[in-house]
């Protein structure tokens, strides 16, 4: 008979079978009666000889079924009926699972994009970046372990000439703002300077034209530019004749040689590319390049590394004495994800904890359900159900719940990802978008499988202890092992929650510390905008001075403007690091480095940076007058070991500068010591009028100075008026974006803020879940021990004694959990050390706060259900006995 036919004739077959069995029993009974047995005994004898008729009939029917599937379907139907009878339970569990699995899926998508998915280049495993490793011991006895991808021009020349196992491309670290004039437009665009082999190494072919030639990549070579697809469309209206056209960049003519295809991913966000022309002079004198590496076919990384190891650039001799220094290739993906690895893994850890806590909670709920069904399970066992069939059915509920939870969770994750990405600072991720691929789905399925197994396993283990007899006698008792299982679950939940709370706590304290760092200036009503002066028209110091003079005069004339100034750097930004020497006193002649900036006289007034001693710069500090400098308080302390430094001298290049003033410290993104996203560090200022053409040419290729305007009140249309004022001084000179100064502070700490928001949300979720866990455990205890409490109270136990007796177990679980949690947190928080500033990973205040918070909340959750004890009536309990 075909399977199809069987399905239809099945009812018929089943009916025949059951009739037949009935006939058999009757025939046997009749025979026994005929032999003189009383009717009743005969019927029971016939049944005994026959065996378990229900079970055997079932076996007979099973012959016609597609066994595993039919069994599963039957179990599923039963489980669905059970779940529909408890909509509250079902809803809670599915929602908890959806949130937990959704969070895990979303964060895993992030980890996948950042750390796992291959880069969007051909043969990404053949791509690397050259880094300099340094292992040594500092004079202070500290172990120094440093990895640096900034390289100088001499290193480039050595690599280019001696390493044959791979191809190399140099690039400037990041894109700079420059001025583009084309098609009657002046635009501030992002220029990424790269060497001739850059696109070849990445494996990107131009859409039109070609990449740079070796000749174009030599110092003083012909000026050439490659356009991005987006720029070609917007500024050049997708002009097919654009190749060979001359456009003006940085005030000089450049020839368009190529257009790149759309949506390419390179190592920096750029509108166009120009040759970097790496060599040992100019910017090549410092570690301003990065080197990309593409392995030659047939070569191995160990060959490349062996060739790199043998190179000893001059710069090594200035490194830490006695240290091991060498060059090596580091996988590109590892390098790109360097900054985001710890935060991403920290988030992954946090959401994983949430999933575990959620599963523990659900397992606790399942435990209650399975205890309630103890009678049913015992009855089924007594009627001949196998243990396997009971387990199969116990697993069916968790399975259905996780399937529903996971489906919902993946949807939540998908929807959340779009908003989540918007929450992140734009340059935090080296990827432009986070997408879900098969890895993410596989991960979600694994999460779901692990959850289902865990949630199903705990109740299954509990049924092992079920005994048929006491259950059937209708006297199930609250055995100690029942509350013990729950106690262990709740304890572990509390333990994990403490870890999350402590983690969120130290991150909050980090943010508070960073946000309450005294900024050292007043950001209110200050607007800043950058201009690229990497422009042929302003390279000469005299032209530069004229531009500042004219534009600032025009801006001061805008009604409502209080002061206007220009500075190479502004607070919250990373500044220029420059070398200098102290020219007098005991430390005279020693070379040192510090953050520095040129500024116009009103700079300190515009930012309201206090002048602590001496004077600010004035209009009398001209290119002709004596060279002067101003230092900040940290600089005075660190390099002069004195606060009385007015009249002392610095040697900047060949210029001997007198220190004429000391100003207050401002908060900046550190340039030299990268141990905090924000800090106050030593800094010196020089007048914008006293910098040389050579200096300007160099620093303006890396930094774009800011025009700073302070108004007495917010001015509408200030941006346009500032642009107009700049136009008066120089035509075709565009401002980049305008920013209220207060925005910069927010941007500087955006990563910390995102971390704090996410971790606080997760920790609150964990807290809520574990409180539900504690509450559930205690209320279940109340229900289980109702009879016992009633009897006790009848025997003279007071209400409060009974409440303490029951509620105690909740508090005990929490105290135990806190104890273990402190130990676990001590280990776990080590992992996020690099994310913490101004607070230790094991911060006593945070840990105490977290413990007290958990304990208080747990007390409430423990004693709230005991209020129900008051409703127990001892008399009715005794009557029911």
């Amino acid at each position, binding site marked *: 008979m075909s399977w199809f036919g069987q399905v239809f004739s099945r009812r018929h077959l089943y009916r025949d079978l059951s009739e037949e*069995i009935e*006939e058999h029993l009757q*025939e046997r009974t009749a025979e026994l009666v005929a032999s003189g047995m009383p009717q009743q005994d005969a019927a029971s004898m016939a049944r005994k*000889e*026959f065996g378990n008729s229900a*079970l055997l*009939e079932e*076996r007979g*029917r099973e012959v*016609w079924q597609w066994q595993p599937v039919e069994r599963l379907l039957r179990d599923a139907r039963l489980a669905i009926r059970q779940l529909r009878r408890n909509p509250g339970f079902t809803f809670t569990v599915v929602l908890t699972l959806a949130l937990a699995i959704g969070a895990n899926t979303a964060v895993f998508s992030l980890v996948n994009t950042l750390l796992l998915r291959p880069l969007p280049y051909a043969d990404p495993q053949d791509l690397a970046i050259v880094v300099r490793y340094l292992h040594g011991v500092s004079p202070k006895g500290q172990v120094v372990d440093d990895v640096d991808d900034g390289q100088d021009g001499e290193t480039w020349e050595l690599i280019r000439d001696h390493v044959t196992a791979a191809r190399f491309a140099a690039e400037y670290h990041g894109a700079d703002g420059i001025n583009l004039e084309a098609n009657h437009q002046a635009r501030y665009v992002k220029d990424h300077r790269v060497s001739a082999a850059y696109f070849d190494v990445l494996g990107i072919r131009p859409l039109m034209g070609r990449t740079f030639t070796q000749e174009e990549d030599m110092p003083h070579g012909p000026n050439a530019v490659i356009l991005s697809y987006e720029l070609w469309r917007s500024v050049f209206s997708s002009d097919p004749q654009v190749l060979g056209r001359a456009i003006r960049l940085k005030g000089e003519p450049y020839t368009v040689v190529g257009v790149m295809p759309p949506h390419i991913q390179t190592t920096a966000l750029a509108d166009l590319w120009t040759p970097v022309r790496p060599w040992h002079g100019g910017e090549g004198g410092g570690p301003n390049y990065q080197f990309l590496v593409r392995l030659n076919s047939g070569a191995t990384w160990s060959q490349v590394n062996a060739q790199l190891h043998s190179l000893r650039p001059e710069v090594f001799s200035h490194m830490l004495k006695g240290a091991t220094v060498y060059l090596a290739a580091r996988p590109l993906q590892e390098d790109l994800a360097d900054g985001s690895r710890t935060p991403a893994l920290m988030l992954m850890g946090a959401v994983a904890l949430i999933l575990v806590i959620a599963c523990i909670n659900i397992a606790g709920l399942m435990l209650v359900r399975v205890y309630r069904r103890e009678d049913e399970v015992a009855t089924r066992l007594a009627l001949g159900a196998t243990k396997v069939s009971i387990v199969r059915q116990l697993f069916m509920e968790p399975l259905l719940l996780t399937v529903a939870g996971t489906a919902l969770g993946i949807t939540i994750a998908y929807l959340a990802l779009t908003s989540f990405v918007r929450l992140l600072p734009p340059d935090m991720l080296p990827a432009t978008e986070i997408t879900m691929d098969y890895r993410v789905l596989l991960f979600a399925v694994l999460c779901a499988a692990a959850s289902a197994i865990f949630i199903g396993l705990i109740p299954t283990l509990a049924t092992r202890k079920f005994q048929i007899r006491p259950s059937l006698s209708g006297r199930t008792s609250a055995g100690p092992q029942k509350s013990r299982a729950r106690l262990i679950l709740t304890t572990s939940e509390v333990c994990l929650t403490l870890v999350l709370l402590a983690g969120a706590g130290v991150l909050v304290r980090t943010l508070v510390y960073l946000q309450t760092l005294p900024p050292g200036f007043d950001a209110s009503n200050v607007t800043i905008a950058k201009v690229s002066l990497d422009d042929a028209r302003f390279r000469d110091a005299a032209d530069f001075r004229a531009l500042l003079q004219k534009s600032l005069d025009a801006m001061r004339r805008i009604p409502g403007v209080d002061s206007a100034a220009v500075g190479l750097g502004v607070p919250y930004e990373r500044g220029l690091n420059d070398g200098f020497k102290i020219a007098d006193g005991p430390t005279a002649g020693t070379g040192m480095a510090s953050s520095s900036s040129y500024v116009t006289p009103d700079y300190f007034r515009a930012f309201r940076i206090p002048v602590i001693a001496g004077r600010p710069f004035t209009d009398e500090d001209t290119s002709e007058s004596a060279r002067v400098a101003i230092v900040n308080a940290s600089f005075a302390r660190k390099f002069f070991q004195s606060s009385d430094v007015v009249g002392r001298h610095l040697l900047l290049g060949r210029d001997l500068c007198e220190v004429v003033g000391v100003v207050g410290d401002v908060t900046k993104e550190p340039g030299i010591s990268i141990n905090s996203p924000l800090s106050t560090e030593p800094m010196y200022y020089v007048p914008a009028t006293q910098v040389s053409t050579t200096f300007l040419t160099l620093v303006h290729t890396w930094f774009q100075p800011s025009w700073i305007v302070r108004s007495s009140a917010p001015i509408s249309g200030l941006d346009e008026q500032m642009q107009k004022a700049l136009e008066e001084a120089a035509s075709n000179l565009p401002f980049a974006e305008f920013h209220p100064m207060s925005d910069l502070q927010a941007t500087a700490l955006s990563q910390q803020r995102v971390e704090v928001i996410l971790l606080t949300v997760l920790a609150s979720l964990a807290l809520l879940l574990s409180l539900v866990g504690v509450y559930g455990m205690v209320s279940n205890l109340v229900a289980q021990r109702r009879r016992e409490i009633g009897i006790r109270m009848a025997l003279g136990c007071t209400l409060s004694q009974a409440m303490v007796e029951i509620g105690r177990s909740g508090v005990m679980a929490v105290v135990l959990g806190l104890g273990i949690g402190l130990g676990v947190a001590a280990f776990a928080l080590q992992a996020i050390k690099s994310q913490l500033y101004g607070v230790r990973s094991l911060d006593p205040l945070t840990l105490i706060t977290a413990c007290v918070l958990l304990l208080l909340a747990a007390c409430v959750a423990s004693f709230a259900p005991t209020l129900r004890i008051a409703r127990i009536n001892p008399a009715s309990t005794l009557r029911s006995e």
Partner: protein
Amino acid sequence: MAEERDLFPGALELMILQTLKHKPLHGYALAQHIKQTSNELLQVEEGSLYPALQRMLKAGLVEAEWGISATNRRVRIYQLTPAGRKHVAREISSFERMLEGITRVLSPLKERG
């Protein structure tokens, strides 16, 4: 229950087939026949006959029809199909071969004992 059903896998089926080879029978009569001919040596639950019969029905070794028994009862009578006949011949010869093998292995022990 499954583990106590048979002596060895297929033994019950073989006995049913062998019994049906001589004449068609209904379930109860089959059970009594197997019990008696095996001298009650085989402690088989009478009811386990029915799942076995269902299996053989499905495999097309037997066919069943409602009829009237000698004692005037409405019963389902089973008889072998041609396929069932072939099957029982094959099974019995292979069973005999197996039995012969077992006997040979066991016989030296018997001599000693």
